[in-house]
């Protein structure tokens, strides 16, 4: 697999590697990206145009749509309890 021609500027960002296709390096998925950009990272308070409450509102909407949480499939490692 050859790397695509560089775009105007192609920084070396994270890639995804899969044990089923170990040689294929993919762009990270939107779900993984949004999990980090919306679910983690520094939240600044103060003179935000978009307040925390709005960010949380967005996150709630998107969580239903995009991000991860499936109450019926808890992580087996949560709290050290096996499934």
């Amino acid at each position, binding site marked *: 697999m050859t*790397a*695509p021609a*560089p*775009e*105007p*500027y*192609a*920084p*070396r*960002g*994270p*890639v*995804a*590697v*899969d*044990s*089923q296709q*170990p040689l294929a*390096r*993919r*762009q*990270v*998925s*939107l*779900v*993984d990206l*949004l*999990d980090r*950009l*919306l679910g*983690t*990272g*520094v*939240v*600044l*308070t*103060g*003179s*935000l*145009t*978009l*307040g925390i409450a*709005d*960010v949380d509102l*967005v996150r709630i909407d*998107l969580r239903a*749509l995009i*991000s*991860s*949480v*499936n109450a019926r*499939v*808890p*992580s*087996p*490692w*949560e*709290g*050290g309890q096996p*499934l």
Partner: protein
Amino acid sequence: MTGELRYVYAVTAPLHASLPADLRGVAGSVPYLVEHAGLAAVAGRVPEADFAEEPLRAHLEDLGWLEETARAHQRVVDALTARTCPLPLRLATVYRDDDGVRRALEEGAEEFHATLRRLAGRVEWGVKVYAQRAPEPAAAPRAAPASGREFLRRRRQEVTARENVLEEAEELGRTLHAALAAEAEEVRTYPAQNPQLSKVPGQNLLNAAYLVPRERSDAFVARVEQLGGHDPAVRVELTGPWAPYSFATSDTGTTGTGTTDTGSTGTETTGTKTTDTQERVHDGAGA
């Protein structure tokens, strides 16, 4: 609504290297630095017509716009990560002007400095483990069940086969997680991803982030490959190296092995992260 707002990507120590001249961030704007309190905020000028509260809220409901913006945000964070130790901010952190950005740096200065020190030289790796679909039990040609009892017996066998595969996958996931946690400075586990949303096959059994010193990244990746690469019961997906998003807030990471709190991601202030990350990335993060 013809003005400009300031979109802030990350907070870093003052940069000694310049950003790539052709780097473009959100809304196609050129990132620039706002320096204050011994810190630098990396910001871009964005149109108020798109990033004021109301239009932003509407845009964020639009997956196409959201993806474009998220990729642009990540592009800038990646460029920073190659040069320094950025603390990435939550998507869509917007200020009215540079003075607002300076005030945020001022207010958070102490914690920013502490977090930058804590995370300097570290990167984040994400690991997900999926159970592989059980092999179709006896999908080969088979006579139709001769009776209701026979039908039920076969169903039980199928269910048992699936459960065994799942148990094996869970066991392997636990082993992998314990081994990786031992290699990591901090660990954070996330809720399993919903397969309908992530559109990947198999049940997600582990979704975790590991904070690893950059110089130990190769060893960490090798460990993932060694432990997770060959078992047909699971599919292991590795992403990284990320800037340490998952550890940028002081309360999110736990040290040591094992479990960390999952679930709701806090709204605390401040985090940091670091990293520059040269290895293991061949594809551009772009399109």
